C-alpha cells in the first residue's frame, strides 16, 4: 500500500481557511476572476444556449424533430438520462459510502464530488420530462387527488424511477447544502463587502458554530450519509429495472440492476477525476488534493471497470447459455452488425484502457489518467447507446426491425446539457468553497 500523504505536511487550519476562502472571495492576488474561468463559462453558456434553443424548438414542433420512431422509441433522450444519472453517482459514492468507511482521503474530495452529483442529477432530470411528449403534464406522475380519478401505475418500474430520481435529487441537494452550512458561515464572517456578507449570511442560515449546532450536526450528517449510500444503489438498480422490466431482447435480465450500479460507479469516479485534475492546478489545490487522492481514484476507477467488465462477460454468457434465439441474434448484430463500432468502442474505452491503472506510476501520470477518465465517460455513453438502440432496433420479430439515427436536435440537447452541467459547476466552483473546510479542520486536528 502506498504511503503518499493525504495532505501537505506544512498545512494548518488557518492556511486551509485562507486558501479555500480566497478562491470564493477572490482575496489576495489576483483579486479578479481568472481568465480561464470566464473562457470556460462563456463556452458553457454557449452550449447551454444551444440546449435552450433545442428545447424551445421541441416544445414548438413536438417529438417529431427527434429521430425516434417505431421500433426505436427510446433514443438519445433516455440514453442521456441514464448517462447523466450514472455520472451523478460518483459524488454520492465518495461522499456517503466512504464517509461511512471513515477513510481520510474522502474529506478533500467530497465537496467537489457532491457538486458534480448535483449538476449531473439536474441534467438527468430534464430528459425524462422532455421525453414525455407532453411535458406540461409531467405532474401526472405525482400521486395527487385529481378529478380524473387516476393514479400513477405503481407496479411499473418507470414510476419507481420517478420516485427514485425525485428522492435522489432532493436528498442530494439537502446533503450538499447541509454539508456546506459551516463553510458558508466561514465565508460570511470572512467576506469584506456588505453584498458578499449578506449573500453568504443568508445562505448560512445563521450557522455560528455553537455547541448546540455542532451537537446535532454530526448526527444528522452521519444518518444522511447512511441513507444516501443505499439510496444511490437503489436509484441505479431501479434505472436497470426500467429496462429489465421490459420484454425487449437484451433487456429482460436479472443482472441489470447490479450491472447499472457498476456502470454508475465507473462513470461517477471518472467524472470526479475529469474535473479534479484540472481544478487541482487551476485553483492551487495541491496541498489538499495530493497524489494520494489521484492514486485512490485511479484504483476505484480500475475496480469499477473490472466490475463492469464482469457484467459484460456475464451478459454475453447469459445470452448464449439461455434459450432465446432472438437474444443471440441481437447480440451477434450488436457485436458484428451495423452498430459494432459502438460495442467494441465500449469494450475498449471502459475495460481495456482502464487496465493501465494497474501500475501506480501510470495512475500518477495525470494527463493519462484524465484521458482514461474521458474515455470512460465516452465509453459509458456508447454502452448506453448499444443497450438502448440495438435492443430496440432488433426486436423478436424480424419484420419489425429498424434503425435509429439521432437528429441534430437530439445532439443539440446532449451538448446543451453538457453546457448546463458546466455552467452550474463553474458557478459552484467560483462562489462556494471547493473543499469542505470544517471537515478538513477536524481531520487536521486528528492528525496533529
Amino acid at each position, binding site marked *: 500500500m502506498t504511503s503518499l500523504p493525504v495532505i501537505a505536511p506544512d498545512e494548518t*487550519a488557518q492556511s486551509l481557511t485562507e486558501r479555500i476562502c480566497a478562491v470564493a472571495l477572490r482575496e489576495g492576488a489576483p483579486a479578479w476572476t481568472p481568465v480561464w474561468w470566464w473562457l470556460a463559462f462563456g463556452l458553457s453558456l454557449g452550449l447551454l444556449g444551444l440546449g435552450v434553443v433545442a428545447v424551445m424548438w421541441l416544445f414548438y414542433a413536438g417529438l417529431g424533430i427527434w429521430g425516434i420512431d417505431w421500433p426505436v422509441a427510446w433514443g438519445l433522450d433516455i440514453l442521456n438520462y441514464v448517462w447523466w444519472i450514472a455520472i451523478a453517482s460518483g459524488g454520492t459514492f465518495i461522499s456517503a459510502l466512504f464517509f461511512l468507511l471513515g477513510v481520510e482521503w474522502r474529506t478533500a474530495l467530497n465537496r467537489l464530488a457532491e457538486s458534480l452529483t448535483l449538476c449531473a442529477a439536474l441534467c438527468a432530470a430534464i430528459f425524462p420530462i422532455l421525453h414525455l411528449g407532453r411535458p406540461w403534464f409531467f405532474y401526472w406522475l405525482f400521486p395527487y387527488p385529481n378529478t380524473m380519478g387516476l393514479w400513477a401505475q405503481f407496479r411499473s418500474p418507470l414510476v*419507481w424511477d420517478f420516485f427514485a430520481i425525485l428522492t435522489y435529487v432532493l436528498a442530494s441537494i439537502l446533503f450538499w447544502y447541509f454539508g456546506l452550512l459551516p463553510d458558508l458561515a466561514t465565508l460570511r464572517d470572512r467576506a469584506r463587502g456588505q453584498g458578499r456578507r449578506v449573500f453568504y449570511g443568508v445562505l448560512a*442560515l445563521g450557522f455560528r458554530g455553537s455547541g448546540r449546532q455542532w*451537537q446535532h450536526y454530526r*448526527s*444528522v450528517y452521519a444518518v444522511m450519509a447512511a441513507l444516501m449510500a443505499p439510496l444511490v444503489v437503489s436509484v441505479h438498480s431501479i434505472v436497470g429495472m426500467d429496462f429489465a422490466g421490459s420484454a425487449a431482447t437484451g433487456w429482460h435480465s436479472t443482472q441489470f440492476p447490479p450491472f447499472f450500479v457498476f456502470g454508475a460507479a465507473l462513470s461517477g469516479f471518472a467524472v470526479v477525476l475529469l474535473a479534479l485534475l484540472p481544478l487541482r492546478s487551476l485553483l492551487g489545490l495541491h496541498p489538499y488534493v495530493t497524489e494520494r487522492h489521484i492514486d485512490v481514484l485511479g484504483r476505484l476507477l480500475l475496480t469499477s471497470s473490472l466490475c463492469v467488465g464482469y457484467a459484460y462477460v456475464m451478459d454475453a454468457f447469459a445470452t448464449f447459455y439461455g434459450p432465446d434465439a432472438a437474444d443471440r441474434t441481437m447480440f451477434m448484430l450488436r457485436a458484428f452488425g451495423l452498430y459494432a463500432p459502438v460495442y467494441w468502442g465500449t469494450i475498449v474505452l471502459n475495460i481495456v484502457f482502464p487496465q493501465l491503472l494497474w501500475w501506480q506510476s501510470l495512475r500518477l501520470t495525470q494527463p493519462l489518467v484524465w484521458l482514461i477518465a474521458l474515455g470512460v465517460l465516452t465509453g459509458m455513453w456508447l454502452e448506453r447507446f448499444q443497450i438502448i438502440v440495438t435492443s430496440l432496433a432488433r426486436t423478436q420479430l424480424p419484420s419489425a426491425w429498424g434503425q435509429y439515427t439521432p437528429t441534430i436536435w437530439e445532439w443539440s440537447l446532449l451538448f446543451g446539457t453538457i453546457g448546463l452541467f458546466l455552467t452550474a459547476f463553474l458557478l459552484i466552483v467560483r462562489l462556494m468553497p471547493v473543499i469542505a473546510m470544517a*471537515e478538513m479542520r477536524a481531520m487536521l486536528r486528528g492528525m496533529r
Partner: protein
Amino acid sequence: MIVVTFATEAGMMEAASDVRRSDPGAVETYMAMEPQDAAGGSILPAAMLCGGIAGGLGGFLMQAYATTISYPQNVGGRPDLSWPSYIPTTFELAVLGAVVTGIAGYLVLARMPRLYDPVDESAGMRAAMQGGYVLVVRPADGARARDVLSRHAPIGIEEVAE
C-alpha cells in the same frame, strides 16, 4: 453578555467547564469544527427513524389504497395488492421522509435560520468560524464570571449588550 476569545479548543472548554461550575448563567461555545469531546447526544437520529417509518408506511399504504380501493386494475393477472412491486417506492419515500425530518428537525433544534443574534455585535465572534475559539457567557454574577474567565488566559474579553 461576555464574549471571550481563546487560542485553543482545550482552553475554551476548560474555561466553559469552570464557568458552568461557578455560575448558573448560560454558557455557549463557538468554533469552526465539531468539538473534539462533543457533549450530549442528539435526538435527531431517532426522529429521522420515525420520519423514515412514516414516509415508508405512508408510501406503502398510499399504493395499497390506490391499487385496491381507489383504482383497482388488472395488470397481467397480478393481484390488486401486489405488494412486492410497492417496495421500491416505499423505500424511496422512507428515505425522503427520514432526510426531510432530519433537516427540518436540525433547523428547529439548532434554532435556524437566525440571521441576526446579539452575539454578532461582538468583534470576536467573527473569528469563531475562521478557526477561532469563542466562549459566550450570560452570567448571573458578571464580576465573578469575569474573574473565573481571566484565569484561563483568554486572548480577549468583550462585554456586549443584549
